[in-house]
């Protein structure tokens, strides 16, 4: 195993989180943006029981698809091959990058235009392309902005949501040749579009993600709002689609129920401006479309999640981002603090499979387990339960006979183990527990004034004068 692409030390995460919560500007911009998205989503789901029926249906489709995943992937490959699409399998990010770079080299590529694809972020394709001496240019406006500034997306749906209009205005004036300073949103988008329009025409390769891959028809479905996805998948001579192996569904009829929840949950849209269904390259006699079409199916740790009954539900995800929008932690610290490609609750449950628990064990702890993520998840992934499970796997070695997760036990600590063993010893011995309560109340004046993280922003906790146990016992006697 190569070193993970990203490593998130607990101390670095905590430092970034502390810096983020101290940044009033970041706090208010994320709060406002998330409030906006929450309200947009809520407006799309006025009927709570109807939403629950939709979520149950979507969950069943995803569970059904995952239950048959190996068969569906084979069927998808057969169907796509029949349709003239080359299908590639990549177990690791390195393999995926190599496949894409090989294709690019074959076509003497100088420029690749990219539609939005989180899997391409996951494998850090742009770096790999740059290392191979080729340019990969993001064409989604948000992705274009963060790429221009040398940043990474801070949200899986709205990558530049952390940036203000003024920051983008300064960035464009500085980095886009010939662009005059303007903070008019329409003009800024116009500047970006003018740059990109020319690039679409000159790029040798267009790359896109995939929202749903339909096995029975060999159809790649792609959701987008800007039309850049359609440009990337139709204008260049070669189109490479890249996706995780979990995105497959069996039938075309399984797409609409998922699509209806995806766009409503993500941006509060009943449907996106564009919905592309791609089933093959340009056929003889057709006047447009790519001459060559590839699909790269990426594992990158997904089979680890797949192999476990509980963790498999991680793969139900359709990448709407609603869990992030509703997460009080994400809202406070933003996406960059996480240090992983996928931030927020979904990032905390998916990253450990991709990067290992040694690199990511802090992420599942960055949650108060409030349950907002699980409540809004359109495919009903029990995210809080998975966070708890991953906290456990990070702190315990695999039991005999169990296959360890990547990085299993990486956060194990003798001290913490002793604390919990002591805790269990106390709380399983009622007489000892009552004696502890008696002492704690009698010596309440000796309560330490500094109590770990608690007293950072709170006065110390102090036991009451008499425990409830003691008061109830006294009452019984009288």
């Amino acid at each position: 195993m190569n070193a993970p692409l990203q490593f998130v030390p607990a101390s670095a995460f905590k430092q970034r989180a502390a810096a983020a919560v101290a940044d009033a500007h970041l706090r208010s911009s994320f709060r406002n943006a998330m409030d906006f998205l929450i309200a947009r989503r809520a407006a799309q789901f006025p009927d709570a029981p109807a939403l629950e029926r939709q979520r149950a249906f979507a969950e069943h489709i995803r569970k059904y698809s995952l239950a048959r995943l190996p068969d569906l992937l084979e069927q998808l490959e057969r169907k796509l091959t029949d349709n003239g699409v080359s299908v590639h399998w990549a177990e690791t990010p390195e393999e995926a990058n190599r496949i894409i770079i090989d294709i690019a080299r074959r076509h003497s590529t100088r420029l690749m235009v990219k539609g939005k694809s989180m899997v391409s972020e996951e494998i850090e394709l742009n770096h790999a392309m740059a290392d191979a001496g080729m340019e990969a240019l993001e064409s989604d406006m948000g992705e274009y902005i963060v790429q221009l500034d040398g940043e990474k997306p801070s949200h899986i749906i709205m990558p530049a949501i952390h940036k203000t209009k003024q920051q983008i205005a300064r960035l464009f004036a500085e980095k886009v040749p010939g662009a005059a300073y303007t903070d008019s949103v329409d003009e800024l988008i116009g500047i970006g579009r003018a740059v990109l329009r020319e690039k679409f025409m000159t790029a040798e390769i267009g790359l896109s993600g995939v929202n749903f891959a339909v096995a029975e028809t060999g159809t790649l479905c792609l959701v987008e709002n800007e039309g850049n996805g359609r440009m990337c998948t139709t204008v260049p001579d070669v189109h490479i689609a890249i996706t995780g192996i979990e995105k497959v569904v069996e039938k075309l009829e399984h797409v609409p129920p998922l699509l209806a929840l995806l766009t409503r949950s993500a941006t509060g849209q009943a449907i996106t401006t564009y919905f592309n269904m791609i089933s093959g390259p340009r056929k003889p006699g057709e006047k447009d479309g790519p001459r060559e079409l590839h699909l790269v199916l990426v594992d990158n740790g997904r089979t680890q999640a797949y192999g476990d009954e509980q963790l498999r539900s991680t793969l139900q995800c359709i990448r709407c981002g609603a869990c992030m929008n509703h997460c009080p932690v994400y809202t406070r610290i933003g996406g960059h603090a996480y240090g992983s490609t996928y931030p927020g609750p979904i990032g905390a449950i998916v990253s450990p499979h991709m990067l290992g628990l040694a690199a990511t064990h802090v992420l599942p702890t960055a949650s108060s387990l409030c349950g907002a993520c699980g409540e809004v998840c359109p495919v009903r992934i029990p995210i809080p339960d998975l966070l708890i499970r991953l906290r456990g796997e990070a702190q315990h070695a695999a039991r005999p006979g169990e296959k360890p997760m990547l990085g299993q036990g990486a956060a194990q600590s003798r001290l913490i183990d002793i604390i919990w063993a002591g805790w269990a010893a106390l709380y399983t011995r009622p007489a000892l527990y009552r004696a502890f309560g008696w002492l704690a109340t009698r010596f309440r004046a000796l309560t330490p004034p500094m109590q770990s993280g608690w007293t950072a922003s709170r006065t110390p906790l102090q036991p009451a004068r008499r425990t409830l146990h003691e008061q109830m016992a006294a009452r019984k006697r009288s």
Partner: protein
Amino acid sequence: MDEAGRRHYPEKPARVYLFGTCLIDLFCPEAGMDAVRLLEREGIEVHFPAAQTCCGQPAHSSGFPEQTRAVALAQLRLFPEAWPVIVPSGSCAGMMRHHYPRIFADDPRLLSEASALAERVFEFTEFLLHVARVRLTDRGAPARVALHTSCAARREMGTHVHARTLLGQLPRVEVAMHTHESECCGFGGTFSLKHPAISSAMAGDKVEALKQTGAQTFLSADCGCMLNLNHTLQKRGDPLQGQHLATFLWQRTGAEGEQR
């Protein structure tokens, strides 16, 4: 439960068990005592098994399943009669009602015991409203209060609805809404110790939202949230303090008719 997820409630019983919770036991015993007083005023006898300690949630949410199981097992058989088990905390009630059956899922005998117990677990406000079917008499002066419902209470036990309905029986109590009402206060058990910066930011936002309502006090059915918010307010030198719902209800309605 019926198909719509609504719970069927039993007739008002003559006797109940109280599971006091570890936080109430040590830090807010008055809330537990006020819950007992309210139940007794309804003519219900309250039994408090002396061997009870903690539901096990701290270890559960920290990823220590063995310790969770050991502590949960120590509570499982403390309630032998078929009486309701009243828990004056939405989060501990949620643990016993929803998570116990899953903790013991690998042992059919313990699972059946855990499921039988889970069926009898009621969060305190839920019990007052739907099982004891109280009719509260408001004996207090006009008051404006805010309500903070713990996340587990809200999402696992529906406490925000029960508490609001109960408070609705008090004509001189106005319940003010605060912004981001359904949002977490940042407690999250060990989360508040592990990620103090994030937890403090969440608690800070919550106390600001509560203050903006102009309420004299805020109420919660969970001691954890209440301690988090009260100690945050104290550190800021702010006079606003929250109360457990049981305490507030007893003080507003209990001046007369108290039976000791």
